[in-house]
């Protein structure tokens, strides 16, 4: 049982609360650490041969770090693109279609990355 005031308190004018803002910041902080580590990994294997790169990416620490980086980055970019769509697309049906496409695209990128990392680690 909630009073009408209790239902809207803390939600702001968009009725969505601070969840979106918080997730953007949380993943932003995680991205600083994870993307920096990922950059160092990429720089260290740039120009290497196939076997060498597979060996590097088969390191459990490296593999888990890349998976974590994709999880954080994809979450961050999905809600970021959501804001861009909401800002510029005002036709309701187009907006809904693009918001759906945004989620589908993000999941597709994530699945490709997860599949590749798992295959490199378990399937070669």
């Amino acid at each position: 049982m909630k009073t009408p005031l209790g239902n809207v308190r803390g939600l702001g004018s968009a009725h969505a609360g601070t969840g979106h803002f918080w997730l953007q910041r949380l993943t932003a902080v995680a991205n600083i650490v994870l993307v920096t580590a990922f950059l160092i990994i990429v720089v260290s294997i740039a120009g290497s041969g196939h076997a060498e790169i597979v060996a590097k990416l088969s390191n459990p620490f490296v593999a888990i770090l890349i998976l974590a980086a994709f999880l954080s980055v994809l979450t961050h970019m999905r809600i970021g693109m959501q804001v861009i769509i909401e800002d510029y697309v005002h036709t309701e049906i187009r907006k809904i279609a693009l918001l759906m496409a945004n989620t589908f695209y993000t999941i597709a990128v994530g699945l490709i990355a997860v599949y590749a990392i798992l295959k490199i680690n378990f399937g070669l």
Partner: protein
Amino acid sequence: MADVKFQRPISPHLSIYRLSPTMVMSIMHRITGAALYFGSLLLALWLLAVSGSVSQFDFANAFFGSWFGQFILLGYTWTLLHHMLGGIRHLIWDTGAGFEPKERQLLAVGTLAGSLALTVLVWAFAYLLKG
């Protein structure tokens, strides 16, 4: 919805403001973010190529090794670092700090200068390690 025939007041457009460094960096933050959004697919596809056969890997390497591929990667590096520094700037602002005119200016210019410097550093390291 009522049929609105009279001209309703609208909020000021971007074009009436004088361009300032903070404004340019704000726009850049969104543009770089959107670019990274599509760049993430390239990264996932590269991992997929690594997980595939040697010939698939060689194909991806030939693309990223070409002048066009290198140009894309260089742009990707700068875009990533620029968005990251821009994000750190926003995190600083989230604490309530850095809003004085001089500080705002410094953070905006610092984002651009820092991203360019870091890009050079990352590529210099990559080439040094390659030998």
